[in-house]
């Protein structure tokens, strides 16, 4: 579905990604793991067009989408849940979700948008309760749910998630990851960036380990969780 070939991107002179190769199969949960500063966020941002790629290309269903503007990506069904949630704090929950459907305003009838909003409310019932509350007053977990719900409103085929576990309580993380699994069953392909290796490998089908801008290891989730190096470095066993 998504294929990344030899992708490099730079912040000024600093090379943040070095010839990254990556493949996301349709219907899978693929995860990119790595510690702080490994380039995980940069990789996602390059895929969704927020950071320009210097070398390499990104193929989506065989079509070259390298360096297209972000709104084109959203139109083609790639939806990005940015790091740190980035919800619109002074708007209500409902308005946030409506903004998620921003590009569908003219294309889809309002009944379809309403249906998707009901789907989001079913997935995260707490958002229904908070519907007309200002989003900035939500708790961290609720904000993360809102960010995911907002991304779902654009009816994506590929969902890019940037550290959904960031700064949340373990129980909330479990809830959110359960919802991700549910989305997976609905047929949405997910590319998940995580620091928490264990919880990510629990739900993922395939994983990549990123270190200093390079892919150092890849494999199915089982292979990776059995891997001795990973156990030592990331899982501390």
């Amino acid at each position, binding site marked *: 579905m998504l294929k990344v070939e030899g992708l490099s991107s730079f912040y000024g002179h600093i090379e943040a990604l070095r010839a990254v190769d990556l493949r996301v199969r349709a219907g899978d949960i693929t995860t990119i793991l790595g510690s702080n500063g490994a380039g995980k966020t940069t990789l996602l941002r390059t895929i*969704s*067009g*927020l950071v320009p790629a210097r070398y390499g290309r990104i193929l989506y269903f065989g079509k070259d989408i390298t360096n297209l*503007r*972000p*709104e084109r*990506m*959203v*139109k083609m069904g790639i*939806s*990005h*849940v*940015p790091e740190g949630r*980035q*919800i*619109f*704090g*002074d*708007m209500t929950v409902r*308005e946030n979700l*409506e*903004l*998620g459907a*921003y*590009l569908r*305003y003219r294309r889809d009838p309002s009944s379809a948008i309403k249906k998707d909003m009901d789907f989001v409310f079913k997935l995260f019932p707490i958002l229904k309760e908070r519907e007309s509350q200002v989003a*900035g007053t939500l708790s961290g977990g609720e904000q993360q749910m809102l960010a995911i719900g*907002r*991304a779902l409103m*654009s009816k994506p085929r590929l969902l890019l998630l940037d550290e959904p576990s960031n700064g949340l309580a373990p129980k909330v993380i479990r809830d959110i990851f359960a919802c991700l699994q549910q989305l997976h069953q609905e047929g949405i392909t997910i590319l998940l960036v995580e620091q928490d290796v264990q919880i990510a490998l629990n739900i993922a089908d395939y994983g990549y380990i990123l270190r200093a801008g390079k892919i150092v290891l890849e494999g199915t989730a089982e292979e990776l969780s059995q891997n001795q190096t990973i156990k030592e470095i990331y899982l501390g066993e």
Partner: protein
Amino acid sequence: MKFKRLVERIALTRPGDFLRRNLGPTVLLIFLLTFPLWEGSVSGPVHIKFLERMRLVGIYTIVAVGLNLLLGYAGQVSLGHGAFMGIGAYASSLLALRAHVPVYLTILMAMLVAVLISLIISPILRLRGHYLAMATLGFAIISFVVLREMTWLTKGNEGLMGIPKLSLPGVEVRTMGGEYYFIWIIAFLILIFSRNLVNSRLGRALKALHHSEVAAETMGINTSWYKIKIFALSAAYAGLAGALFAHIHSFINPGIFQLNLSIILLVMVVLGGMASIWGSIAGATVVVFLPKVLEAIPYWFGNKSLTQWFSNNYSNLEPMIFGIVLILVMIFMPSGLTRGLSDFFRYRRSPFVNPLKRGSGI
């Protein structure tokens, strides 16, 4: 299809509902329409020429609304809107003086010129925050120098004289009351248009990009294009206001459109309330009437010489007065006059707190 739905909606709306939803604008409209009829009885005793000043309030309201869309809603600073006013004023006056184009057309052309220039300099919108402020400041200074030094066209510091009065096809607007209605009808339409704009999908996109450009981009909002659009729209408003200004004063020179004006326009927006369409009127009103009220106060107490002194020294005092007012408002009523006061009455909330406060400023 869309049209049919619109007609149905209008037919189904009860007048009572419509009034209730649009109470503010209706009251404002009635006030504005009847104002010239009764202002005379107030003007005399308090020693302020209301009608004359109200024309200026209308003009500044137009610019302030545009700047508020840019600054209050989209979060982009501009210190160059005084320059856009100047460009509009000069474009309209020159077309009327040199090419003898009727004034109602030159005003439209002035808007067009302002839009064109805003599009030419639109790459500066890539800059953010202070850098954008600096770039627009540079634009204001350059425009001032160009207007002053292009003497073959603008007659430099001497200025343009004998600019024709406002006109509609066939009629020249000669009286002050006529000018008042001419300006305020335009201003009111612009207010309504802008209000509908910010309540539309585009308005929401602007608020989104103000809050977080990354998030707005991931929603599929083309942030740079929207910034350009709103910049051009506010430049059009400023050009329009500048043209109106020139035609009611019949004299302009580059000095009027210096940086000072841009700063006063910013004061109006902040004073009236960021992200508040109606606040723009409040801001413009305060800025236009404050000096006159200060001037009139000694008169009320029978001290005519102090009034005289004040109006002679006004140009020196002006920056100081507005500086103080701005500081006081920023400290005590950070959400602006309109929001501060309306929250006070509606929610019994102290007007002295900022409900919009959050981590990142403009």
